[in-house]
């Protein structure tokens, strides 16, 4: 068939209204939504990962309020200590009280409304480990601690590096048979390991939303159709493995982009809901996509958004509050958008980061650390609580391997398992996906009912 009004055609395809027999293999490839059983709206769930690139000084998101914990904090943090924290009252009280960094003020109401939880003292771990074991190397230590790209990979993989590596975001889609449609696996931050599985690759969406393909704009012109046919044939002729990898990708990118454009034409605009930061723009694109979620006919979606700049070796007192303000602003905006869409209970947003940072200062910044805190947001979250373990921010404590690099008391795999279970994985699937869990006496946190 030719490309008569491609947009209408694709729109029909999205809704499953075109006979499969009428389709070329190329169109079939671009239309896999038909292969996925349509999910009822009530069963729909989405996970939104916000990756804080560079290693967030996330211990500085939770500020001790009084007594010994405050003294230890002021002593370790010195000129990087944060004051004027916003007091919060987690369900389980913290000794001496605890507050949020004032730059997180936009999400403080969400914590109080039990739509936001903190996971504290979390990091990459193979098994529980004490300071003595760490020093004596008598228990398993994660490889390449403190290295950006290696630790980012550990968070995205949910396991230690192997000869072939996949991410747990892509893997859970596969385990739930939700990986057949590009619309189930969308990144606003390019290619990433988290969303990559043996049969799952993220669709990298442009954060500005609808992206026309200039060369094919004039889609009704026979000339354009003929050009397109020539180019598609050329892409399919590639034989060199690297060339084929490139042209397969370009070929599906064009098809998927056109499908997404069609879907986004009826998306909510969220006028004046989101601010102008890069992260807000990414989350706006996620919100728009979620507003037309039913058009993809998928039961599960994972989204990946990224925010850089957290490697605050320098000027932390200026940079870190700005970063946290942008983060919390964007999260609060996104929470509002989900309420508007009525998807609060079905969409869970969570943070990951390379690692926490040193409690000690290098003068005006911090260096690569280990344990940290993460944020989880959504209507399904048992919010208003701090899960895990609030590690006292004291140097030379039983948790400090040096300079205030703190040993995690919760494995990031336990954190991931909690999210994966909510998403629909069985306990055995979770254990399979996160192999270190068997070394811990608890496989997950009680973040979800």
């Amino acid at each position, binding site marked *: 068939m030719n490309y008569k009004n491609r947009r209408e055609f694709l729109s029909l395809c999205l809704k499953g209204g075109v006979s499969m027999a009428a389709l070329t293999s190329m169109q079939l490839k671009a239309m896999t939504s038909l292969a996925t059983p349509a999910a009822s709206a009530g069963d729909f769930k989405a996970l939104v990962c916000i990756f804080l*690139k*560079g290693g967030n000084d996330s211990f500085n998101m939770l500020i001790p309020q009084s007594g010994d914990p405050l003294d230890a904090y002021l*002593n*370790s943090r*010195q*000129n990087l200590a944060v004051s004027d924290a916003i007091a919060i009252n987690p369900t389980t009280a913290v000794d001496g009280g605890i507050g949020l960094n004032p730059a997180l003020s936009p999400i403080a109401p969400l914590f109080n409304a039990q739509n936001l939880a903190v996971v504290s003292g979390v990091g990459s771990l193979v098994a529980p480990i004490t300071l003595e074991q760490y020093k004596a190397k008598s228990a398993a230590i994660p490889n*390449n601690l*403190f*290295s950006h*790209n290696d630790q980012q990979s550990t968070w995205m993989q949910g396991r230690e590096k192997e000869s072939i590596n996949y991410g747990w975001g892509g893997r859970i889609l596969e385990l739930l048979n939700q990986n057949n449609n590009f619309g189930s696996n969308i*990144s606003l931050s*390019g*290619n990433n390991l988290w969303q990559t599985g043996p049969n799952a*690759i*993220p669709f*990298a*969406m*442009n954060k500005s939303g609808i*992206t*026309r*393909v*200039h*060369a094919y704009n004039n889609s009704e012109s026979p*000339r354009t159709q*003929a*050009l397109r046919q*020539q*180019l598609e*044939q*050329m*892409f399919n*002729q*590639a034989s*060199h*493995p*690297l*060339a084929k*990898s*490139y*042209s397969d*990708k*370009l070929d*599906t*990118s*064009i098809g*998927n982009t056109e499908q997404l454009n069609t879907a986004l034409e009826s998306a909510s605009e969220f006028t004046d809901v989101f601010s102008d930061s890069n992260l807000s723009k990414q989350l706006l694109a996620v919100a728009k996509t979620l507003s037309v979620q039913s058009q993809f006919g998928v039961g599960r979606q994972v989204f990946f958004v990224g925010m*850089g*700049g957290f*490697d605050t*070796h*320098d000027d932390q007192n200026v940079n870190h509050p700005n970063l946290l303000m942008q983060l919390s602003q964007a999260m609060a905006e996104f929470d509002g958008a989900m309420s508007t869409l009525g998807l609060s209970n079905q969409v869970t947003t969570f943070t990951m980061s390379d690692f926490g940072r040193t*409690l*000690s*200062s*290098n*003068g005006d*910044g911090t*260096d690569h650390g280990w344990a940290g805190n993460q944020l989880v947001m959504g209507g399904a979250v048992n919010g208003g609580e701090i899960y895990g373990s609030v590690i006292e921010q004291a*140097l030379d404590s039983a948790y400090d391997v040096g*300079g205030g690099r703190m040993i995690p008391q919760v494995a990031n795999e336990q954190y991931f398992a909690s999210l994966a279970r909510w998403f629909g994985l069985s306990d055995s699937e979770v254990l399979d996906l996160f192999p270190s869990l068997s070394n811990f006496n608890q496989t997950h946190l009680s973040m979800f009912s």
Partner: protein
Amino acid sequence: MRNLVTIALFLSLFACGGGGGDESNPSQPQNPSVEVELSQTARKGQPVTLRAKASGVGTINKIEWRQVAGPIISFEQTDSLELPITPASNAELAADSYTFEVAITNDQQQVTRQQLSFEVKRAMSSAQAARLLHQATLGPKGSEITHATGVSEEEWLSEQMQLPITEHLPLVQNYPDRDEPNQINRIDAWWKASLNAPDQLRQRVAFALSEILVVSDSNNALRGEPEGMAQYQDILLKHAFGNYRELLEEVTLSPVMGTYLSHLGNEKADEALNIRPDENYAREVMQLFTIGLAELNQDGSPKLDGEGNTIATYGQDQIEGFARVFTGWTFGASARWKRPSRNFTIPMEAYSDYHSEKEKVLLNGEVLAGGQSAEDDLSAALDNLFNHANVGPFIGKQLIQRLVTSNPTPQYVERIANVFDDNGSGVRGDLGAVVSAILLDEEARQTSGVLNYYGKVREPLLRTVQFWRELDANSPANLYFTWSLNDSHGQTPLGSPSVFNFFRPDYQPADLLELGIVAPELQIANDAALIGQFNNQYSNFLWNIKEVITEPSDKRILLSMQNHADILELQGLEALLDYYDTLFYSGAMSTAQRQTLREVQDIYADWGLYHQVALLLFTVSVSPDYVIQL
């Protein structure tokens, strides 16, 4: 051009009485002599004539030529003082040595012989020249391929390495109407240098180095320091064929690097305040700029311990040791430590009061005693890094990946690492020797067998550079204000999102996992970026034709299609496709690709010539065979 012609002449004269000549014969010629010379520099596969000049031999009766040494060349006896030959055009890279002899017999049956030994240099075909220039320039123009055709690879490299440096800093201009230049002005300078520099090999190597020794002004304060950024590029250019140790030192002392990885202004510990030295540069100079995380064999593979695990090159002790080394440095020409000059274009200087007096644990068990000067500590620490056995395979392999192929064989890596260790004269770290070895290696030149996954994906930026160079891209204001390269190309020169570059050398897209091969550049080939590039190429070619746009705005970058349109008009489509075959596909354009281009031209045959050319160029630019640099 030096050494363009080096013909070794070995003359030996044999004048002897052929057939038992009579010494007393009065008619015997006196002092017979013969000289032999070549009509021109001998090159493989190209005809050349041997010419004999005889004197004092008397009346010539017979002339006989024979080949004494070298690959056998068939030739016909001419009985002439001139012998046309065509040396074999075999694929071997090395020059071949030949010896020929002429025997001149006079009417007295006396024979005078003369030999000529000469070297036959390779003469690159246009396709071979194109392949080399795709690897060794930012993207060749047709005229550059023509220039390189007919000379050998060594000659071209040698010519390139001697060209003066085209620096970027002098090209940084202010915005019109502004006091201070900004990021866009150093990007403008990058384009001007990249498009116009004759020293293309140096520019390409420096571009490769900029993706290993990464600094970036994306989303940080360096955005406001375009002179410093351009000067950093000039450091890479300056040392592109120099020594890696000197490059490493100048990079380390660059205030741009000092700002980017925060060792500028880094102070010794203040234990009362729990302040330790900043570990940022200490970590990344090891992980990314010199040795990597794991001990390597000379062929780039990781060494394994008894349990099959990789062996870490350093631990926290070394991080802290090097962090102490990199204390006490701030902007050069500062009034004092607390009043920095903020001069981003001169090397940092040391202030001893802020330099750690403690001992410093380095690699391989070396420990610097406390109390040394900042300068001595730095010098010793950089020596310690530079002399680690990993540097050759670690840096060598990445340079191969940036210039030639994503998946070099271990043997190729080892050959290059060996050259890094010793350039043949006992010098370690000679980048000129390393670059030559990379480009002249049999694996780069494909003189023996071709792996089916050979080559690399071209970086999006370099694709555009080639088209813009070939088509003399420029704006009426002579400005290249490319504001959104990240959207249109997925990369910006010196604008990586982090010190880990736009892509990692070990990136594997999922569909290549089974083959076990990597494709670093595909890390930025995500959907959004691919559509961005697809659109950018289309708008570049179709909407910015210099010959069509009559009243362009000041900064609109236009491409000239005139030369290509002329070929199409005067010589026809096949001639233009022949030209594209060499220029864009190094002579390897497939039949199917050529047919696609014919069909595309046919679709638009009733459009103007410029638009026909534009559509052909767009098709080339997105064709899989062009996107791969073989």
